[in-house]
């Protein structure tokens, strides 16, 4: 179990993390979400005692990070795949990391094999792609066979196969009963991978829940209907208080009603239905809705092409 309590970090006048508190339970993948500048990376650095927090604590199975004798055996972390010396080989990078925690060379070769980098283990890291560096970083995480794994944007730079691979690895690790906290901007990927979510904005906790509950709470729900007699059904739904949007001559979307109500109404009017399905917004929709008020860096209006001179 990973517990963050009252974590606060200030950089001058800016409060990057503000009284943040959440728990991450073992056995599931927990996604750590927030808009750019929301304090995710700072929080992770504070959790690992790399940044000195102004207040608050983080505990790993009840112990502070600084009190862990050989942390790699308990907490594996990857904050940035670029934290490697480009002139050092991948194997040598893992060797010093392993040596610092009393881990032998055999384990270095094992984790290189595990992440698929055995053939390039002797190559200098400056020759690695970003995806290869991510794999090397994950090898470092796995070195000590830790019970807790913390990853900041691990899918960055990975190709589709790599993204799927990292999803499988993290799901597998969680399935072994480990505590897995992972931040990512790839919300579609997070929807597939995570069971729980911790969502923050402007350094504060917005919500902690399961992915399903988060989507149910924040994403829009509607009913999609296809019918050859759409006109009559649309009028009846509007009369029943639903907000109706007609997409094409045989398809509409109705908001403010449930599938059962639509079905019963159609049956009463003798209208044939070709499709009647409940629709829910994506994790992305829910995330944007939940964090709308906590966006630090907001985009301007979509780009408008310049007017063509007359």
């Amino acid at each position, binding site marked *: 179990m990973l517990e963050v309590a009252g974590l606060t970090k200030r950089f001058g006048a800016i409060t990057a993390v503000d009284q943040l508190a959440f728990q991450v339970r073992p056995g599931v993948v927990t996604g750590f979400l927030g808009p750019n500048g929301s304090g995710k990376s700072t929080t992770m*650095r504070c959790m*690992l*005692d*790399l*940044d*000195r927090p102004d207040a608050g604590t983080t505990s790993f199975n009840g112990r502070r*990070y*600084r009190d*862990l004798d050989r*942390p*790699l055996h308990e907490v594996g*972390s990857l*904050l*940035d795949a*670029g*934290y*490697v*010396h*480009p*002139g*050092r*080989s991948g194997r*040598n990078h893992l*060797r*010093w*990391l392993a*040596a*610092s*925690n*009393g881990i032998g060379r055999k384990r270095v070769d094992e984790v290189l094999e595990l992440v698929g980098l055995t053939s390039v283990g002797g190559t200098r890291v400056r020759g690695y792609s970003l995806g290869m560096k991510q794999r090397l970083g994950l090898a*470092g995480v796995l070195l000590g066979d830790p019970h807790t794994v913390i990853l900041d944007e691990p899918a960055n730079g990975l190709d589709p196969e790599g993204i799927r691979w990292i999803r499988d690895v993290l799901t597998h690790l969680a399935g072994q009963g480990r505590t897995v906290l992972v931040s990512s901007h790839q919300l579609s990927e997070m929807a597939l991978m995570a069971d729980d979510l911790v969502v923050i904005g402007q350094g504060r906790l917005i919500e902690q829940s399961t992915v399903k509950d988060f989507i149910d709470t924040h994403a829009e729900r509607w009913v999609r209907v296809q019918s050859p007699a759409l006109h009559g059904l649309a009028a009846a739904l509007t009369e029943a208080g639903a907000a109706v949007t007609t997409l094409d001559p045989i398809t509409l979307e109705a908001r403010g009603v449930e599938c059962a109500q639509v079905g019963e109404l159609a049956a009463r009017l003798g209208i044939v239905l070709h499709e009647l399905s409940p629709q829910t917004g994506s994790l992305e929709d829910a995330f944007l809705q939940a964090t709308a008020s906590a966006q630090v860096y907001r985009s301007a209006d979509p780009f408008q092409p310049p007017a063509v001179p007359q």
Partner: protein
Amino acid sequence: MINLLRAESIKLRTVTMNWVLGTIAIAFPLVVTLITAFVRGDDNDFTTDLLLEVLTGTSFITVLLVAVVAAASITSEFGFGTIRPTFAATPRRLRVITAKALVLVEFGLSVQLGVVLVGVLAGTAIAEGRGSTIDLADSPNAVPALVGTVVLAAIVSLIGLGVGLILRSTPAAVALLILWPLMAEGLIGGLLGLVFDSEEPARWMPFRAGFRIAQLNIIDDGPSRLMSGVYFGAVSLAMVALGSWLVNRRDA
């Protein structure tokens, strides 16, 4: 601590630049010694004192290169971000710095010890081949001066580490380590000499005092070889202590 020493040793040995600088640090005084032996050996003029002067004189370059390696060993960690996995793997930062300091001192000692041993052996062999005789017992200051060069290299490796910990930037640390002994100390010492109308303050500039421990013949009446070494060592430890305090306090 053994694990950390192994980790820091691997870090030092697995960067090519350290091998390049270490090789230059060893090769430069040896090349100068060999050239001198060949040039002066013909005239039976390659004496013990000349060999010692070449070895102690060129140690200046060796120790500067040792200092650069020492500084880069920590500044490159900040530059490439490896300081974060380092401190994540060992949250007690002072242990990491202690291990790094010990490994760097061992590096400095090894490099300069190598220079002295190979220099004396090669110089002796070449000189004897050309009819000269090299006998360290001929010079009463031979052993103190040669030991002094080795001690100097160890102390300077600590100075390099301290400067690196404080500045956290390779260009800034390297520039300071080269320009300070070559220029700044001369200027500041000169100014202090004018202000106090005395040579004494200049003699206590750190590097000037430090290099006294490696001088063959100390001709002025400044601090003794031992006092210079103690003073320079204290300055280097103070810099490491200041750097450690800053690193322990700052975000990684």
